[in-house]
Structures are given as C-alpha cells and as structure tokens.
C-alpha cells in the first residue's frame, strides 16, 4: 500500500448536465485517491468523463446546466464539493491548480502573459505589483522561457504553442499548489514539444513534491510519467492499477482494446493496430448493464443486465468486468 498521505480522495462522484435534449450522465460514480507527490493518469476516450470529473472537483462545472448529484471530494480532509464558492476561490489556483488542453484558447488573448501569471500571486499571496513581477520572471525562467523579463509583456498570440503551454504551467505553478491537474496538456502540441512539457512537469513535480493528475487519452505518454493509471469509460472507472501492472496485465476488455490500439515498439512489427469497434456510448441515457458491452468482444448476457462493480483483481489492481480475461471465462 501507498504509505504517503492521501491528499485528494474522491468518493462516488456523479455529475450530470441538463440540456435541452435531456440529461447527460457524464460522471456516474467515480472514486479515486491521490497521495502526496504522487502522479496518476486518467485515461479514456474523449467524452468518457475524465475532464468532467476533475472539473467537478475544481468546481468549474457550469451550473446550470451541470449538476453534481452526489459524492465527496476530500482535499486534506475537507470536502471540496461542500465548500462555498468563496471558500473554493481560496483553494483553486492555490492548493489545486489546473492546466488545460489548448493553451491558445485557455489564455486570455487581450491580457499580457505576465499579467495572467501574476493574477494568482496577487489574489492568493497578496503580493504587491513589484514582488509579483519578480516572481513572474522567476516562474517563466523555471518553465524555460527565454528572456522572461521582456516576454512577460507579450500577449499570448506572440508565443508559440509550446511556450504558451509553458506559460500555462508557470501560471498553474505560481502559488506552488499541492495538486496539479493537467487536462490533456500536450494534446494540441507536436511530439517533440510534448516530450519537453512532460519532462518539465516531471522535473517540477519532483522539485516541488506536487501531486499530479494527468488526464490523457494517450496511454503512450502515461508510461514514463505516472505511477498509477485509472481507466475511465462512460463516466465510470473501469480499471485501476499501477502503470506496470496495467501494461503487463490489463484486466478490462476496454483497457485491452486501448493497449491494442497503441503502437508499441516492443511488439512484433506484423501485429496490426486494432481499433475499437463501435462508438463511445451516448451518455444521454443512463447506462444499464456494462457500458462497454456493445463494443466488447467478450460480452455475454450478464454484461447487458448488470453493471459490474469495481472488483479487485490483483494487488492494488481493480477492474469493472464480469469476464475474467486471464482465464477466458466469466467470473463466478
């Protein structure tokens, strides 16, 4: 078991969106824990509820149409979901920081980079203008932006994509948060930049002893980064394991499929990449039975009738499946 202190503890989080067409069941009972200085990855296809889960924790779900139906999110023992908006303002950006997918749209185009980075400093640390400026320069230096003194007066459009994401990181790290939530921060970037950013986050994590939640749809990037992986599908956690365990011994057909779709240099060349048949489920309908059943190659009757619970399948390894992929038969 992990000996480090649990810093973030999600219990049965359920989030829905009420839109004109009905209710979108986005997150349907997610529980997970995060320890200090630990990095976990949440993996899944687009629309499986990864981002919504974390946005719910951060209190960034627009209400309405969003609604957090139930659940708790304990951060150092305090339930974030029960906090008032004002109390949350003190935690967001200071204790929990978030980096978003597209740094082009996530940065305000009409404010300078420096100003946007200095905002959390002013708000949370009550820094005066000069101190904040100084700190911004340090931060930019830290994330590897050359000539930060001048560049801090630039506007986002004057930065390249990678630099923007570095600036985003600087902004998130400004108040030295305990938890950094990175919501697919490298998706919009090309591969070399992606690697640089990952390297940067790893370095900063180690330096600051920061817990990181890395949301991604790409199992490939997870390997060198996270300690544990949580696989989500249709708003549910379907498998949870340490990185090695997951790669070596995946237990959920969805994880299997994800891995099969992954090009791996350690596999035989002639093995063809497999795509997952079908489409992700329509979350306008409350899933009944196993949500992956329509696309699952091992599906049998029980899958359609009952939703499987998240069952322990090995040490610190749990999967949500009625089928024992190791033995090739349903569980008893």
């Amino acid at each position, binding site marked *: 078991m992990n000996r480090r202190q649990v810093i973030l503890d999600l219990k049965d989080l359920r989030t829905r969106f009420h839109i004109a067409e009905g209710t979108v069941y986005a997150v349907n009972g997610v529980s997970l824990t995060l320890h200090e200085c630990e990095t976990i990855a949440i993996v899944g296809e687009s629309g499986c509820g990864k981002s919504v889960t974390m946005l719910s924790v*951060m209190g*960034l779900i627009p209400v*309405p149409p969003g609604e957090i139906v139930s659940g708790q999110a304990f951060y150092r023992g305090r339930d974030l979901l029960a906090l008032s*908006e004002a109390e*949350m*303002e*003190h*935690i*967001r*950006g*200071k204790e929990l*920081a*978030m980096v*978003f997918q*597209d740094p082009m*749209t*996530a*940065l*305000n*185009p*009409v*404010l300078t980079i420096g100003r*946007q980075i200095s*905002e*959390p400093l002013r*708000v*949370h640390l009550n820094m005066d203008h000069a101190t904040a400026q100084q700190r911004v320069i340090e931060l930019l230096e830290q994330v590897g932006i050359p000539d930060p003194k001048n560049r801090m007066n630039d*506007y986002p*459009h004057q930065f390249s994509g990678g630099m923007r994401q570095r600036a*985003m990181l600087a*902004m*998130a790290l400004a108040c030295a948060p305990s938890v950094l939530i990175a919501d697919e921060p490298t998706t919009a970037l090309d591969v070399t930049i992606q690697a640089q950013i990952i390297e940067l986050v790893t370095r900063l994590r180690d330096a600051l002893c920061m817990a990181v939640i890395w949301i991604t749809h790409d199992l490939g990037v997870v390997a060198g980064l996270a300690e544990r992986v949580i696989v989500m599908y249709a708003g549910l956690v379907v498998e949870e394991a340490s990185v090695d365990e997951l790669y070596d011994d995946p237990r959920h057909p969805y994880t299997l499929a994800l891995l099969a779709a992954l090009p791996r240099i350690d596999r035989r060349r002639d093995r063809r990449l497999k795509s997952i048949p079908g489409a992700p489920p329509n979350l306008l309908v409350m899933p009944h039975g196993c949500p992956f059943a329509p696309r699952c190659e091992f599906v049998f009757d029980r899958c359609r009738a009952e939703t499987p619970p998240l069952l322990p399948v090995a040490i610190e390894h749990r999967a949500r499946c009625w089928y024992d992929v190791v033995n090739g038969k349903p569980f008893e």
Partner: protein
Amino acid sequence: MTRYILRRLLQAIPLLFVISLVLFFLMQNMGDPIATMGGRNVTRSADRERLKRQLGLDKPIIVQYLYWLAGNDWAKADLDGDGIAETPGTRRGVLRGDFGLSLVNKKPVTQVIWERLPNTLLLMLTAEAMILIFALLIGIYSALKQYSTFDNIITTITFLFYSMPVFFFALVTMYIFAVNFKKWGLPYLPTVGMFEPTAGKTPLQVAWHMVLPTATLSFGFIAGYSRYIRSAMLEAMGQDYVRTAKAKGLPKPEIVYIHALKNAALPIVTIIALDLPFLLGGAIVTERIFGWPGMGRLFLDHVSRGDTPVVMGILMMIAVAVVIFQLIADILYAWLDPRIRYT
C-alpha cells in the same frame, strides 16, 4: 499606424466625393425651394425666374454641383437677367470650407448647423450615456444570470422595446406621463420644447424637458445594445480563458469585468463608435415629437423646403463623422485587441 491612418483618410476622399455627388443629384428633384408656401407676398413668375437666376438654380446641375464644391468666385453670374454674366460669384465652395447660404434664411449653413448642434449633442450624449450604462448593467447581469427569471423577463422586455417603433413609444409615454398624469393631478412631465418659456432656460428646466425624449431615444437602443452585450458576454464567459481564470481562483468580479468583459468589449466598442456619428443627425422622429430644437428637426424643416445647401451640409457633416469614427473604431479595436496590428 500613421501610414495606415493616412491611407484610410485618402481612401475616404473619393467615397465622400461620390456621396456628395449622388446626394446633390437626388436633392435637385426634392421640391422647388422657391415654391410659395401659403405666401403672403406674391411670388410671380418673374420673381421665380429672378430668384432662380440669383441663386444659381438655373444653371445645369453639374455646374451647380461644381459651384457647391469649388465655389463660383472664379466664374461670373448673370444677376440682372440681361443674358450677360457680369457679376463675379462670391461662394468659395465646400472644398474651401464654405457650405453656402441656406436658401430659407440666408444664414451660412455652418451657422445654421452650429446653432442646433449643441442641443442635439446634449440630448444625444445624455441618451448615449443612459444607453451605455443601462445596456451594460442589463446585458452583463442577464448574461451572468442566463435563463434565470430575471433574464427571461429582461429578454422579453428588451424585445418589446426593441420592436416598438420610436414614435409609438413616444406617444404612449407622452400620453401617460404628460397628458394623463396631469389629468390625474400627479407630477407630470412636459410634452415639448427644451424649457418653459416662463421659467427660462435653467439647467433644471432643460433636464426636466429631457426626460421623455431621452427615455424615448434610449429604450430601443438599451434593448438592442443589452441584447448584444448579453450575447457577447455569454460568448466570452463560455471561453476557455474564463475557465482558466476561474481555475486560478480569481474572484468573480475580476473574471467578469476583466477577463470576460475586456474580450466582449471589442465588438461593443466598435458598434458604439460606429453609432456615435449618427447621433449628430439627432433623432428625427424623437426631435419632431418632443419639439426638441436639434439637428433632426432642422433636417426635416429644411428638407421640406428644398433647402439643398443646409441638407447637404448636414448629410456631409455626418458622412465625414462616420468616416472618421469608423477609423477611430478600427484604431480603438487595434488598441483593445493586441492581436490586431495595422500597417
């Protein structure tokens, strides 16, 4: 930037030239400025002929336009009707700042306009201030409270006001607040004018007389603008950078008024800058209904008497203002939006 401004201004010259030409031609068929209007003195055919000659209205239209544009002090006119042009002209033309004399009252056009401009500006700027303040308040608030009861009520009301023709609004308010309030013995608003002649032109009087016209002018615009601000704000509030700002733990006012509004302001500022010059023209209908001595009424009075110099003067003034304000809008836009640079 300077080059950009210069280029834009140079581009405007042919535009203004074409506008003035078209308007001038249009105006020639607008009625006879010499036609009698229930006159008490005889305007016999001899007088009509003489006046046409004296005012240069007997000249071909292109010559009239040329005189209007470039003056006629380099040409000679036949004033006594003997067929020989011997009197040198006195007009210097628009190009040299001479807009001519009003055919109605023989005053210089510039003076005629200057006399009315302050009144119009007083009314319109007050209205514009009201429009801005209320439109911002309503627009932002209803954007923040999207789909709330307040938002729904405001949306319905703004549509009502937006759709209501100005004169109908004016008549209804006049009927209620001026006519019926008086009938019911309540404190009532004045119907027309800028002040009570007995009370004199005191600031209080003018303010009191401005209530209804300002309200009439404002409501439609408040409705329109606030709809616009609402949607601009809604769009801005839905942007990723607002979520980022929220994720940073910024307090709500700062998110709304800096991160969202500064972006939403871009199109709003443009619209306002483009609308402003039209204020110079006053509001024809409002000024007529409330008897406000401004540019709109001036225009109406002089159009109805075929007073080409004054009508041209007013229209060209507005055209120039529009061109300048369009430029200002563009520069302002560039100033507000760092992504745009003009070269």
